[in-house]
């Protein structure tokens, strides 16, 4: 059974035109998925749907086969525990008034997860190569790359099955990107990743499958290896031609 299944999903803001149209998408446990498209392709909207922050205006989204009903607290709690996120901007994704300990511990407290919070936070920080004393500091005391590591620690502390990462390296310099990619690669051994990015080269490093979005529609999807070696759609070919490839530098 898929972790998340989108079936003929469309979405429009207010009474505007559809920004997503007829999306069919399955997220399988253990298979990292990359969602690639340029600005305006609907990447952010699809991410909001996958995070349960917006509801489809048409079609159906299920989590482990069940429809996501915000009124069903048990299902939503299970969903929140299973699905976490890392955002693009490490400066706005960490609360500047909270110490790192409280930032990382927030999912455990909010979801009332029965874990020793001290141990869980220390373990999450260790997983992202940050020392234990980082927990006592504020975000402004860290560099951009370190902040992104803190955001990743928050996303993994509750041991989710799925981590969605939105343009997670695009605000970082090249050296830091490579370190974060290495970190995500290590994390993907124990959790499924969905990477949303305009950079097909970056997602290809980590994902088994790719979905190519153009103007709210999926124009191509399949195994990353197949798409990279033989792109079928002209838009995919254009993305491949125009995107600097991280592996060229790595």
């Amino acid at each position: 059974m898929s972790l998340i299944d989108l079936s003929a999903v469309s979405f429009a803001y207010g009474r505007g035109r559809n920004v997503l149209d007829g999306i069919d998408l399955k997220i399988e446990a253990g298979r990292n998925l990359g969602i690639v498209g340029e600005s305006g392709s609907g990447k952010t909207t699809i991410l909001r749907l996958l995070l349960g922050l917006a509801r489809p205006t048409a079609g159906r989204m299920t989590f482990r086969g069940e429809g996501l009903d915000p009124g069903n607290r048990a299902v939503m709690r299970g969903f929140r525990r299973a699905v976490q996120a890392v955002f693009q901007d490490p400066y706005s994704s960490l609360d500047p008034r909270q110490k790192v300990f409280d930032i990382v511990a927030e999912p455990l407290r909010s979801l009332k997860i029965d874990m020793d919070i001290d141990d869980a936070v220390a373990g999450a920080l260790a997983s992202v190569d940050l020392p234990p004393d980082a927990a006592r500091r504020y975000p402004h005391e860290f560099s951009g790359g370190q902040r992104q590591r803190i955001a990743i620690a928050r996303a993994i502390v509750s041991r989710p099955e799925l981590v969605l990462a939105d343009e997670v390296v695009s605000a970082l310099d090249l050296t830091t990107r490579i370190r974060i990619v290495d970190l995500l690669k290590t994390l993907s051994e124990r959790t499924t990743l969905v990477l949303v990015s305009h950079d097909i080269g970056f997602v290809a490093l980590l994902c088994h499958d790719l979905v190519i979005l153009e103007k709210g529609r999926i124009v191509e999807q399949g195994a990353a290896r197949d798409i990279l070696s033989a792109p079928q759609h002209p838009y995919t070919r254009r993305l491949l031609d125009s995107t600097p490839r991280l592996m060229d530098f790595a």
Partner: protein
Amino acid sequence: MTDDAPALAQPSSLRLTPAFLIGAALVGLHVVVGLMTLVWTPYDPTAMTGGRLAPPSLLHWAGTDRLGRDLFTEIMIGARIALAVGSGAVTIAAAIGVTVGLLAAFASRAVDDVLAATLDILIAFPTLLLAMLIVAASDGASLGTAILAIGVAASAIVARLTRILARRVLAMDYVTAARVSGTSWLGIVRIHVLPNIWPTLVVNFALQFGLAVIAEASLSYLGLGAPPPNASWGRLLQEAQATVYTAPFGAVAPGLALVSLVIGLNLFADGLRDVADPTRRRRG
């Protein structure tokens, strides 16, 4: 953005600026004096203890008023009145303003538009005018009416500021991350919104405190504030107006008290932002 410097930055340290310390000292002095009047004053504030309009002397440090009452005693009691009005008005403004501002920030666009327009209309009225209307509509001038009037008038400003600040916080990714983490809306307000808007609100509260003190003095000056025998600084100034050329200290002394408290509050507010905001602390 670069990644890991091998060592983390040093922990940040609290910075108490000279301005903050001066502000705290001025406000602290008024608080001590105001509290002291509850148990002791140099003279009975209603007793005629010296000659009329006497200049400052060892017996009467600020001289006497036109009825021969000790002016220093009245100024001390005026500090208590000013602090009571300031704290009462700011408490009312904070309670109403922060609640309405947060509701507007979380409300749908239509409700937010209505609330924002209402607040703009209220803010368009000068605080003093609004306060005068409320005092006029009530049974009569009293300390309680003055506190309520000034507090209600200030609440629109607090509400608008709260709304703007809260909306800015709600747009941040860390709030989205909190929603993804299952934090409730009330939890988001408690954990993220209030701590992030608090430093700016505190500064505004302190400024509103100072404005409330001035507004109360103005209302008392116009005869709409605390009625006699409450020795409000505004009433002392009003009484000294007729004799300002022959006995100037009657106006200068309460004026100095008023200005020193307002300046103290402003300096205190600015420094308080540094204390309340960890991102403004320097690295040690």
